[in-house]
């Protein structure tokens, strides 16, 4: 008995020691943190945001699948909060009549952080290098870049490309003299920040560039930690980070000393509905007998209650999506629809899809059913797929969900709907999704069978148009021109569900500058304007 008491006492003593030890340390840490907090900030990002091939634009830094400002390097143009174009390195740019030559004059007073001057040669080198090496971004419209003199660079295009300024906004200019295959590990640029330290798999530390040609950054030091959402939440609970990225499923947590910041995005989720009748080519099945019926696609589009879905899946942290480019200057408001399940049922009835004894419709022996795939392990996409399944059952459509890996998803999506995530700061995404692709597949659009000559023509015209403003209108017409398009009254080959708010726990006292609408990818976009953040 005596021994037992002693051991319990020991354990209690140990526990108490541990507890006091912990709390003592954390308050010290807090004080230390408070002292030099005034001009530094610690931000968490998903582990997938860490650039695998380093901070090299040719391998996707800034100009990859997820676009953002490259911070270390500066770009010729930038995008504003409403996604219009502003100049950065460029003083002026113009395009020739035929759209095949872009002439850009650049600032004369810009130096790389190694002291060398940034010239048109560097710009030309950067773009030619990207064209040659980039596997993550499309540079096929560029033939070559030529430096005419120290401050003028000419881009020779292979085809007219009116939205070139959007490409210029994401390609960071690298120094020709300091560029080799290891550039991504030790980047030198002329941007707002210098990369000081990169501990792979853990963190990147940026320091403000003292010679920056623009407004001096307020935040002198930016530390980016790479971790999963649950670790980020734990880090916020421990008070170790200033901005922690988080997901809707954690949004009901309250963390002392932090508030939740929800940033509007065009980070949308939707699914494709293959338009073509089933056929097979090269071992891949294209098309789907059920979704080939336009009335089915229309019924699905208005048979989904997006408000309820956002409440169910995202705890309300999202906005309804009707297109791949909501809120962008090239978005056509006619894409919007209202939820109406009665109308959806009527459409299906009228098209001959009659309800069977099990409540599932069918027509000519074809069941009103499809498999909705989602990428394995993505809980939001899984929840969206499940909610679609539940909602469509109400109008007599049977949806089976299935988790798939990306190794098979692309091919299978040619015949079965898949939950996708898109959203970029360039209208090119409309082209990628809806424009037919010649030379591969069955002459349909790349990701899901769809072809409409009029839509194609508008997008081709938009790329060939003389100014951005003109092109915006043509992009809008490609979505709906009054008679045809990709909206509810048109062919509706894709169903868009919601734009997912990007959520962050932000430490009280930190003022995160106004964000532009975030694109797809919950990573670097938040620090686009970290130079303007401040502590109160």
């Amino acid at each position: 008995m005596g021994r037992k008491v002693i051991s319990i006492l020991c354990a209690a003593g140990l526990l108490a020691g541990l507890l006091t030890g912990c709390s003592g340390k954390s308050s010290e840490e807090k004080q230390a943190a408070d002292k030099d907090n005034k001009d530094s900030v610690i931000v968490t990002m998903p582990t997938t945001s860490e650039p695998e091939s380093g901070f090299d634009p040719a391998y996707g830094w800034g100009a990859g699948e997820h676009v953002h400002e490259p911070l270390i390097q500066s770009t010729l143009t930038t995008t504003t909060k409403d996604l219009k174009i502003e100049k950065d390195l460029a003083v002026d740019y113009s395009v020739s009549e035929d759209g095949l030559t872009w002439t850009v004059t650049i600032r004369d007073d810009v130096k790389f952080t190694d002291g060398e001057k940034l010239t048109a040669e560097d710009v030309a080198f950067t773009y030619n290098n990207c064209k040659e090496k980039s596997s993550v971004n499309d540079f096929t419209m560029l033939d070559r870049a030529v430096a005419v003199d120290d401050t003028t660079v000419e881009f020779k295009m292979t085809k007219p490309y009116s939205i070139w300024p959007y490409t210029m906004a994401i390609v960071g200019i690298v120094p020709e003299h300091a560029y080799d295959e290891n550039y991504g590990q030790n980047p030198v640029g002329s941007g707002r920040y210098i990369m000081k330290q990169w501990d792979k798999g853990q963190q990147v530390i940026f320091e403000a560039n003292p010679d920056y040609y623009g407004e001096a950054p307020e935040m002198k030091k930016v530390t980016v930690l790479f971790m999963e959402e649950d670790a980020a939440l734990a880090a916020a609970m421990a008070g170790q980070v200033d901005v922690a990225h988080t997901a809707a499923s954690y949004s009901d947590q309250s963390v002392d000393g932090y508030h939740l910041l929800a940033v509007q995005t065009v980070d949308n989720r939707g699914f494709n509905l293959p338009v073509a009748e089933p056929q097979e080519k090269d071992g891949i099945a294209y098309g789907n007998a059920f979704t080939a019926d336009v009335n089915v696609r229309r019924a699905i589009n208005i048979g989904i209650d997006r408000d309820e879905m956002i409440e169910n899946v995202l705890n309300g942290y999202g906005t309804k999506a009707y297109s791949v480019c909501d809120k962008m200057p090239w978005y056509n408001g006619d894409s919007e629809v209202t939820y109406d399940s009665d109308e959806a049922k009527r459409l299906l009835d009228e098209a001959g899809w009659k309800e069977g004894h099990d409540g599932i419709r069918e027509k000519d022996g074809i069941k009103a059913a499809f498999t909705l795939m989602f990428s394995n392990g993505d809980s939001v996409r899984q929840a969206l797929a499940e909610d679609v399944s539940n909602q469509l059952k109400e109008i007599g459509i049977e949806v089976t969900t299935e988790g798939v890996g990306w190794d098979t998803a692309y091919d299978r999506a040619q015949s079965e709907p898949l939950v996708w995530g898109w959203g970029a700061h360039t209208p090119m995404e409309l082209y990628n999704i809806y424009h037919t692709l010649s030379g591969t597949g069955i002459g349909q659009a790349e990701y899901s069978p769809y072809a409409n000559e009029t839509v194609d023509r508008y997008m081709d015209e938009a790329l060939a148009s003389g100014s951005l403003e003109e092109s915006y209108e043509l992009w809008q017409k490609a979505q709906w021109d009054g008679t045809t398009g990709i909206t509810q009254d048109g062919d509706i080959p894709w169903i868009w569900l919601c734009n997912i708010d990007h959520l962050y726990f932000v430490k009280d006292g930190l003022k995160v500058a106004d964000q532009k609408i975030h694109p797809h990818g919950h990573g670097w976009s938040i620090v686009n304007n970290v130079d303007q953040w401040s502590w109160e």
Partner: protein
Amino acid sequence: MMRHLNGRQRVLLGLIVSAVILLTVCIGGAFCGDAARVTDFSRKNLEPCLRYPFGTDWLGRDMLVRTLKGISLSVLLGMAAAAVSAFIALALGIAAATLGKTVDAVISFVIDLLMGIPHILLLILISVALGKGFRGVAWGVALTHWPSLARLIRAEVMQLKESPYIQIAGKLGKSRWYIAGKHMLPHLMPQFLTGLVLLFPHAILHESSVTFLGFGLSSEQPAIGIILSESMKYLVTGKWWLALFPGTALVLVVVLFYVAGENLRKLTDPGSVHK
């Protein structure tokens, strides 16, 4: 009550009880069917209560049904895999012991080779090569669990071959088939059966770990590995029930199989059968 029973009866009772529990879980799981996949957002993230004793997850799925279904899936997979494994082990073990030195060397080498590679690694390789999913995991588990049993059977057969009564039977002119069927097989059976049953827990644990790591079943399936890996994300928000109950259930099933196997061994092994 236990006191009135002799050792043999007690062992038998233990075996029956564990077998009945396992069977109930399996049959229960099989009857759950689609209920394990039903999502209902109006009941998401509920703590354990009378209606949902295991709580619900972020999609509003009933965790009790999901766990039952997951366990029965695991057991089913474990049985299939263990049966294939045991069959391979029996065939190779006997072949190694009876077909001469070269065959023995080859088979022993393969056994050593397979035992030298970490189980889980080989499992992942086979599963991914076969396109993951139920098929991938089943083959993965089936093809990786036989070496230790095969080695045991090989040694047993070799020992038997040299034993006097077999030698005498041979000298009396009995055919090889007769000796194998009449004298060797009954002797091997207890080892084999016990080995078979003891493969189950291994197979089940490996199935769930491969799935947990993301190389097995896809994420809409109610597999224990999936359930556990999903629950990891929600532990930090205090949703303990997502991991605790399914995890405990998995451990319990494994323990029950182990108990059943041990009891079976006691009942059939000549060394302990009359205790």
